[in-house]
């Protein structure tokens, strides 16, 4: 596929690996923020090709993983109602709440449907005026513009039977939470390239300056990731923290202002719980009060459902780059992708699920 295959070229990857080997003189710990990057690193074996000085730790950039149990429980309560068509991206359907998941609600007769685009949920609302259509809006800055447009479009069409459960999360506050932890190990970041297509890199400049870390917006193909690592290592070795863009073909400094304007029209910044980590101030998005009619948590009065996270796994430490999946005693035993105990085994993009799929247990 054009613009994917070229960035998987083994010759280019070899050149980059050689240059990384020549550049590195001391140990560095680098975090890739995005679960998609974690998955690519495991799939292409990048972690095993890097020189031993470089340790990659895996960040919290998996929205499915960090969606709080409480939100899943609220979604399940709404999805189980009669007269509701509950819609979601496919990867949220099997995420376990405290006692259930959306697939099981569906198997008991709930009308739960997978959509590829949030606009499909709006279409369902248009075509089913007698039903309430609810969309579970999760994701990072990448996904927020589409989910916001669904509300904007429903409002423009006067659809009163469409609403969203919104549990959006934002990357920069999570990076700050990691960097300000006294146990922090992370010395540089590969920032999530697709988040930056929307946000640009303005917000990273003050973080790079305050915590003296390099931050490199990076793509998702192996050549992109290796080039992102090389740029990060060069900045670390030179002692010149700052932001340097690797993903030149898609990330511009200003991001996508048209998309951000719609996000800000529909959503506002709020405090947000992250599964496995806890509350991070101003790290989420919610529907603005004046659009409360589109807020499914208010519409179906499920805000009272409060769930505490069980202390059964080390997902929180993994999401903050403090531990690796195979250091958990439950990994691959009680905890597998079919029976996940925590956030990072839940989604295929979670670090534990990626380690499990690519058999990293015992290799490192």
């Amino acid at each position, binding site marked *: 596929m054009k613009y994917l295959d070229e960035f998987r070229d083994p010759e*280019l990857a070899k050149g*980059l690996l050689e240059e990384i080997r020549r550049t590195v003189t001391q140990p560095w710990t680098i975090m890739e923020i995005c679960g*998609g990057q974690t998955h690519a690193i495991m799939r292409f074996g990048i972690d095993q090709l890097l020189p031993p000085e470089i340790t990659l730790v895996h960040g919290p950039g998996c929205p499915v993983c960090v969606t709080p149990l409480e939100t899943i429980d609220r979604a399940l309560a709404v999805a189980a109602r009669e007269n509701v068509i509950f819609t979601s*991206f496919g990867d949220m359907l099997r995420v376990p709440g405290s006692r259930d998941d959306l697939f099981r609600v569906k198997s008991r007769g709930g009308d739960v449907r997978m959509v590829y685009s949030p606009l499909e949920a709006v279409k369902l609302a248009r075509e089913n005026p007698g039903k309430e259509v609810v969309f579970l809006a999760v994701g990072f800055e990448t996904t927020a513009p*589409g989910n916001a*447009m669904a509300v904007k479009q429903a409002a423009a069409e006067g659809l009163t039977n469409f609403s969203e459960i919104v549990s959006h999360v934002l990357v920069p506050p999570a990076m700050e939470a990691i960097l300000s932890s006294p146990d922090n190990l992370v010395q540089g970041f590969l920032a999530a390239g697709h988040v930056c*297509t929307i946000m640009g890199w303005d917000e990273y400049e003050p973080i790079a300056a305050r915590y003296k870390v390099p931050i490199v917006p990076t793509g998702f193909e192996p050549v992109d990731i290796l080039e992102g690592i090389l740029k990060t290592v060069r900045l670390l070795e030179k002692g010149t923290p700052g932001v340097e863009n690797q993903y*030149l*073909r*898609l990330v511009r400094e200003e991001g996508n202002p048209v998309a951000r304007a719609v996000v800000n029209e529909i959503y506002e910044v709020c405090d947000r719980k992250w599964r496995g980590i806890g509350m991070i101030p101003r790290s989420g998005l919610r529907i603005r009060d004046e659009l409360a009619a589109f807020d499914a948590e208010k519409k179906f009065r499920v805000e009272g459902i409060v769930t505490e996270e069980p202390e059964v796994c080390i997902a929180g430490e993994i999401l903050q780059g403090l531990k690796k999946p195979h250091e958990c005693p439950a990994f691959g035993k009680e905890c597998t992708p079919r029976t996940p105990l925590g956030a990072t085994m839940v989604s295929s993009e979670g670090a534990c699920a990626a380690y499990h799929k690519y058999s990293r247990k015992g290799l490192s």
Partner: protein
Amino acid sequence: MCLAVPGKVLEITEENGLAMGLIDFAGTRNKACLTYTPEAGVGDFVIVHAGFALQVLNEEEAAASLKELGRLAEFMEKDKT
């Protein structure tokens, strides 16, 4: 979840007031909303995530990156011998 795939815009239409594109992903065709990439024209590559084009791909930057990385790979290969 932030998976996004590049595809070529084949045609642009309007649906319910929104600009929509028919996008070719290496032979597989699917629709995507183009409202956030008003500058995208037929023949452009866009990156698509969850049914929305997020950005137009800068083909010149892509070519320049690949050229530079090609030179690096060539240099490393020569330098070994």
